C-alpha cells in the first residue's frame, strides 16, 4: 500500500452538481415541503426586484418581514402563492428583533404552522431559496450551534468622524461613504446642534445618545451649516470682500439611518467578513437566535425556517457569514407577533 500511495496523483473524482447538497436531486427529496414555502412564505419585492421573504401568519394577510431591509412603501409589494399584492400596510415594528408586521388585503391564505418544540443541534432545517415568480424553492441546512443571545458585537454608528478642534462644538470632520449620514446629505464641517431633540456640545454626548440603539433606526439630527456665499462678479476694491464677508449659517435637520459599524467602516472588516460576500446589514443584537449553516445571502432572509416535519421553528433574520445564518426561534417569534398585534390595536393589550 505504501508504494501505491506514491503513484502519480489520481485525477479528482467529482460528484456531479445535481447530487450535491444544494443540487436538484437532493432538493427533490424534500419537494413536498416546498409547498409550505409556496403557501405560507411571502416574497418581498422592491418594484420588480425580489428583496427578501416574509412569514404568512394569518389567513387574512398578516406577514412578518425583516424590518431593516424593507423597501419604501411606494415600491413595496408582496407575492404570496402566485398573487402579487401592492397595497401593503406596516402595522407595527420591533427594533429589538428587526421585524415588521405587514398587512395585505387577502383572504383564505394558509398561515404558517408553528412548532411546539425547538430544534436541537444538528436538526435539518429548510429555508426559502432562489425563487421564481410562480414557484418557491427551499434550501437545506442544519442547526449549527447553541441557541443564544447575540449581543453587543457591533455598534450602530452614524458614520461620522468628529472634529475635536473647537471646544464646546460638535463638528463633523469626515463622513464615511457607506454611512447613513452621507446618504442623508450631511457634510464635513456641519456642526451638530442636537440629536433627537437633545442639545449636544461634546462628542461624548453624541456617543451617549446613540448607546443601545440598533442598526436600521432613524435618528433626527439638527446641524448648523455655513451657507454658501456667492462670489461677487467683479471686485473693484481688492479688500472689499473681506469687509463684506460675514458668514451666514443655516440650520438643517437630517434623518440619519444608523448602520452597523462594519458596514460603515469596511476597513474594519475581518478576514471572515471578506470571505462571506454581502451579509445582512443588521446581523447583531438579537435577544435570542437559532444558528444554522444554510447558505443564505444578503436579502434572502425574512422567510420561515422549517424542520422536516413541515413545522415552522423560526424566521430567518440575518445572513451573518458564509457558514452562519440566524433565525428568531418560533417561541420568541410568536410572543413578538402577539406584541406587534397588540401595538397595532388588533388584540387588547394585556
Amino acid at each position, binding site marked *: 500500500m505504501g508504494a501505491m*500511495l506514491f503513484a502519480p496523483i489520481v485525477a479528482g473524482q467529482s460528484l456531479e452538481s445535481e447530487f*450535491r447538497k444544494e443540487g436538484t436531486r437532493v432538493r427533490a427529496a424534500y419537494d413536498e*415541503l416546498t409547498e409550505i414555502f409556496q403557501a405560507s412564505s411571502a416574497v418581498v419585492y422592491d418594484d420588480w426586484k425580489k428583496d427578501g421573504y416574509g412569514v404568512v401568519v394569518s389567513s387574512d394577510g398578516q406577514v412578518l418581514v425583516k424590518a431593516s431591509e424593507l423597501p419604501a412603501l411606494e415600491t413595496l409589494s408582496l407575492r404570496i402563492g402566485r398573487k402579487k399584492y401592492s397595497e401593503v400596510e406596516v402595522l407595527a415594528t420591533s427594533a429589538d428583533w428587526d421585524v415588521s408586521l405587514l398587512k395585505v388585503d387577502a383572504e383564505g391564505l394558509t398561515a404558517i404552522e408553528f412548532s411546539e418544540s425547538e430544534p436541537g443541534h444538528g436538526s*435539518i432545517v429548510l429555508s426559502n431559496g432562489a425563487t421564481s415568480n410562480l414557484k418557491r424553492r427551499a434550501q437545506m441546512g442544519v442547526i449549527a*450551534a447553541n441557541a443564544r443571545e447575540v449581543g453587543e458585537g457591533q455598534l450602530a454608528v452614524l458614520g461620522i468622524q468628529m472634529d475635536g478642534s473647537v471646544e464646546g462644538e460638535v463638528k463633523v470632520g469626515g463622513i464615511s461613504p457607506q454611512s447613513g449620514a452621507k446618504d442623508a446629505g450631511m457634510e464635513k464641517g456641519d456642526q451638530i446642534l442636537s440629536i433627537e431633540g437633545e442639545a449636544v456640545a461634546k462628542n461624548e454626548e453624541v456617543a451617549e445618545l446613540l448607546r443601545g440603539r440598533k442598526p436600521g433606526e432613524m435618528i433626527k439630527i439638527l446641524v448648523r451649516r455655513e451657507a454658501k456665499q456667492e462670489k461677487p462678479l467683479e471686485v473693484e476694491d481688492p479688500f472689499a470682500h473681506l469687509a463684506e464677508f460675514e458668514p451666514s449659517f443655516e440650520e438643517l435637520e437630517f434623518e440619519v439611518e444608523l448602520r452597523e459599524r462594519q458596514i460603515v467602516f469596511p476597513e474594519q472588516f475581518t478576514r471572515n467578513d471578506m470571505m462571506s460576500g454581502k451579509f445582512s446589514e443588521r446581523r447583531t443584537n438579537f435577544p435570542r437566535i437559532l444558528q444554522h449553516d444554510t447558505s443564505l445571502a444578503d436579502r434572502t432572509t425574512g422567510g420561515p425556517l422549517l424542520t422536516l416535519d413541515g413545522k415552522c421553528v423560526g424566521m430567518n433574520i440575518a445572513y451573518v457569514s458564509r457558514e452562519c445564518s440566524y433565525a428568531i426561534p418560533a417561541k420568541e417569534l410568536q410572543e413578538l407577533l402577539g406584541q406587534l398585534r397588540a401595538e397595532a390595536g388588533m388584540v387588547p393589550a394585556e
Partner: protein
Amino acid sequence: MKYLGSLAMLGTLFGFGSLSVSGADRHYFNDLDAPESVEDLVNIETALKSVLPSTRAATVCLELGEEKGSGSGVIVSPDGLILTAAHVSGGVNRTIEAVMEDGTRYPVRTLGLISNTDAAMAQIEGEGPFPYVEVDRENETMLGDWVMALGHSGGFDLERGVVVRLGRVVRMAQRTWQTDGTLIGGDSGGPLFDLQGRLIGIHSRVGKVKLENLHVPMSDFVENWDRMLNEEFVGDGPFATRLPGYLGVQLEKDEESGEVSIAEVMADEAAEKAGLQKGDILLKVGEEGFEDVEGLQGLLKEKSEGDVISLTYRRDDEEQTVELKLGGRE
C-alpha cells in the same frame, strides 16, 4: 451510477484490494445517488445527531497566542493527542493552547507536521482522560458520502459552542477532499466526520465559492503517523515553513584558550533536552570545527528547525558527541 464505477477503480489504484462497497456498518443513505424522500433525510439527521455530542466534546479550539488568531483541532486519544492542520500548528515543538467546548484550557505542545499536505499533530499537556474520537484508519469514505464538519468557526465562543455543518464529499483527490459543508476562518484544523462519528479528514482551506471546502484525508495522517509523533517537520511547505535552527544556549569565548563554551542553557530548548550544560566547551558541528562564537552561529544558521545535528563538546576533560534536534526561533 457513473461515479461509483470510477471510485472502485480508485480503490484498486490505492491498493485497498477488496473495497467493500456496502460494509455492514455503512449507512444505507450513502449508497443512494441522493436522498429519495423526507424519510431518508430524517435518517441522515438522526445519524448526525447521534454522533454529534461525542464528536463535539473532542473538538477543540487552538489558540495560537496574541494576534495570531485561532484554529481548531480534534482529540484522538484519551491522553490528549490532537490532530490539526500544519498551517494552524505552525511548527514543531511550539506551545499553544487548547480550549475545550466548556471553556477549560490546556497548554498544548505541537508535534510533527507534513508541510506540503497541511497535516499536523499536537499533544495536550494535562491530566487525561480526555474525550476523543475514533480515526477511520481503513479509509472507507466514498465520494458522495454524507459528512459533518465541526470547528470553532471564527474563534472560541462559549455560548455558541462547537459549530456543525452538513455536507457531502463532492471531490476526492489523493491528498485533498472537497465537501460542500461551508467552512470559514477558525475552522482550519477542525475535524471532518462520517455519520458514524469516525474522523475522516482535517479542514485545510476554502475556495471563493461557499461550497468549495477542502480537507486533508485521514489516509495522509495514517501514513505519516509515526513521523508526526516523532516530531518531524516533513516537506518544504507551503502550509508551514521552517524557522531557522535554534540550539537554545548563550555562548561565550574564553579569551585565553579561544574556546567557545556554553554560558547559559535555555529551559525546554534543544540543548537542554540533549543534556548540554553550562560550562560545556563546544568543539564541532558534525565534522566541522569553528574559531569563535560567530563561526559556530554561522554553521547553525544553515540548519533549520527540526534538523538533527551531531555536536561534539568537552566536559571535565572528556570529549563527547551528542545527536540533537534543533528547535526553531522566529
